[in-house]
């Protein structure tokens, strides 16, 4: 008799916990769904309004457009100087990031392998730059001295320099996971330092180089303050600045502004979806290491 009641109690208990689990999962899913809507609704708003007429877009609602105006995009590409901006952004992002990642890989590799006092000091000296802001007012001055003010080369050098601390920091922590025996074997086989680095080490560093490249590429693409300070000629503006300027002139044409925004975001969204694996691993390499 008593065993029976306890069994019944157990079963009841199980049903209750099962129910509360379902309830909990439901709450969690609802919360996640709510947050997804919170994240996506601004993006949806931009997307949907970029196809409307000026008057319809001014109401800023989430209704579908009565007519789809695809020509908003062609108009904004012409008026907003977007082709120029796209070429500029691509040039700045690719060149500055490629140079920085390659140079920093070399430096980080030597700093990690040859831990002399000087190298260690230089490493800490470099990563102090993670925290310090760029003083753009005096960067202008330095660029003038080298006759690089208002040039693409100058802008690219500033981008490259500002990403050096981060690149050295992330790449160095990865180099330490590459076995040093490989170096020794290669040296015994008669490889010089250049051969050793480019033939043996670089292929092994590919994942972290990809990560650094993607993160910094997006960093330059999204950078607003650097070109704001360093370029006054509209022919040098990246997409970012072109959009801002377009908004300044056409702030009542939300349909066109939104089309402009869509085109500016598209490249980074594509890169994010393609390179997501590398982005996450890069962000987390430091977090797990500790």
């Amino acid at each position: 008799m008593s065993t029976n009641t306890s069994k019944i109690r157990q079963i009841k208990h199980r049903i209750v916990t099962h129910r509360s689990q379902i309830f909990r999962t439901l709450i969690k899913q609802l919360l996640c769904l709510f947050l997804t809507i919170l994240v996506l609704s601004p993006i949806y708003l931009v997307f949907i309004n970029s196809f409307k007429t000026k008057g319809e877009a001014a109401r800023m609602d989430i209704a579908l457009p009565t007519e789809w105006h695809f020509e908003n995009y062609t108009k904004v590409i012409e008026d907003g100087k977007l082709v120029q901006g796209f070429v500029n952004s691509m040039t700045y992002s690719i060149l500055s990031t490629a140079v920085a990642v390659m140079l920093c890989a070399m430096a980080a590799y030597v700093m990690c392998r040859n831990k002399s006092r000087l190298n260690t000091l230089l490493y800490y000296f470099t990563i102090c730059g993670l925290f310090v802001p760029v003083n753009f007012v005096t960067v202008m001055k330095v660029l003038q001295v080298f006759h690089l003010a208002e040039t693409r080369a100058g802008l690219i050098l500033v981008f490259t320099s500002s990403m050096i601390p981060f690149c050295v920091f992330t790449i160095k922590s990865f180099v330490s996971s590459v076995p040093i025996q490989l170096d020794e074997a290669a040296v015994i086989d008669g490889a010089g330092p250049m051969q050793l680095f480019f033939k043996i080490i670089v292929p092994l560093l590919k994942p972290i180089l990809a990560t650094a490249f993607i993160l910094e590429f997006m960093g330059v693409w999204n950078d607003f303050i650097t070109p704001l300070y360093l370029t006054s000629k509209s022919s040098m503006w990246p997409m970012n600045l072109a959009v801002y300027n377009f908004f300044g002139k056409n702030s009542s044409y939300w349909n066109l502004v939104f089309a402009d925004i869509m085109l500016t975001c598209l490249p980074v969204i594509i890169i994010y979806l393609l390179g997501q694996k590398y982005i996450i691993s890069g962000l987390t390499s430091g977090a797990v290491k500790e």
Partner: protein
Amino acid sequence: MKKNKIYPKWFIIAPLILYAVFFLLPSLLGVWYSFTDWNVRSKGVINFVGINNYIEIFTSNKNYSAGIINTLKFTLISNVVKLIPALFLAILLKEKLKGKNFYRTIFYLPSILPFLVIGLIFKSILNFNDGLLNSALEFLHLDFMKQKWLSDLAVVWKSIYGVDAWRGIGYVMTIFLAGLNAIPSSYYEAASIDGANFFHKLRFITLPMLTGSITINLVFGLTYGLKVFDIVYVLTNGGPGHATEVLTTYSYQVYANGSYGLATALNTILFLITTVLGVLIVTYMSKQEVGE
């Protein structure tokens, strides 16, 4: 000897020179120029004026010192607003949940978008008359919650924190998730057997095991907060009045007006604050490395 041959010193030189010339040198030059009257009209003639620029910053009626306070305030609050929800979100998405990979992808998405663009989008959403937020509140019959999000002194900072959190929480969450994944699940199982509830586990397992991720998030968060520019510049441009001005926006404004000396003085204050923070963190890191 041998090491210097296999790992040549010149591998280090190029990035070091670039870093020194285009990154550090300007900051140090900035310290020097902050003691001068350098401005748009001084054609090569720059006079040493002592600490006049700093006196101007701390005593003038332009209220530059409020910019310093605002910078520190933003750094503190924006981090609290992001870190705590992001931690719970990470815990939520760590557990068994259908579609969690989808949610992770979506929640991280805002942090890859250009700040400028986010600023513009939210300028439209937070518009008082026909912005999406106020329309939504009206639709839900919550009219009393409608606000002048970007022009009312009492709410403008909250709007900035909100937009900043919208962009940043996914990023912080991702770093927390990596830390959580490194905690062995056996710890939680053992704790469950001992009758620990959610908060016990959080307090005695999750938080202590998560110090690495918390440090990383704090370091990135603090430096981001101190250097913040884009979001404030685009959303409010320091307004209404000068209520939301931070060091970087003040500096840009002063620079645009041609007072380069004063602008570098403002930058130098930020440089000093971040350098102190940076040196503290780097010293801590170097001790950790020796300890390993």
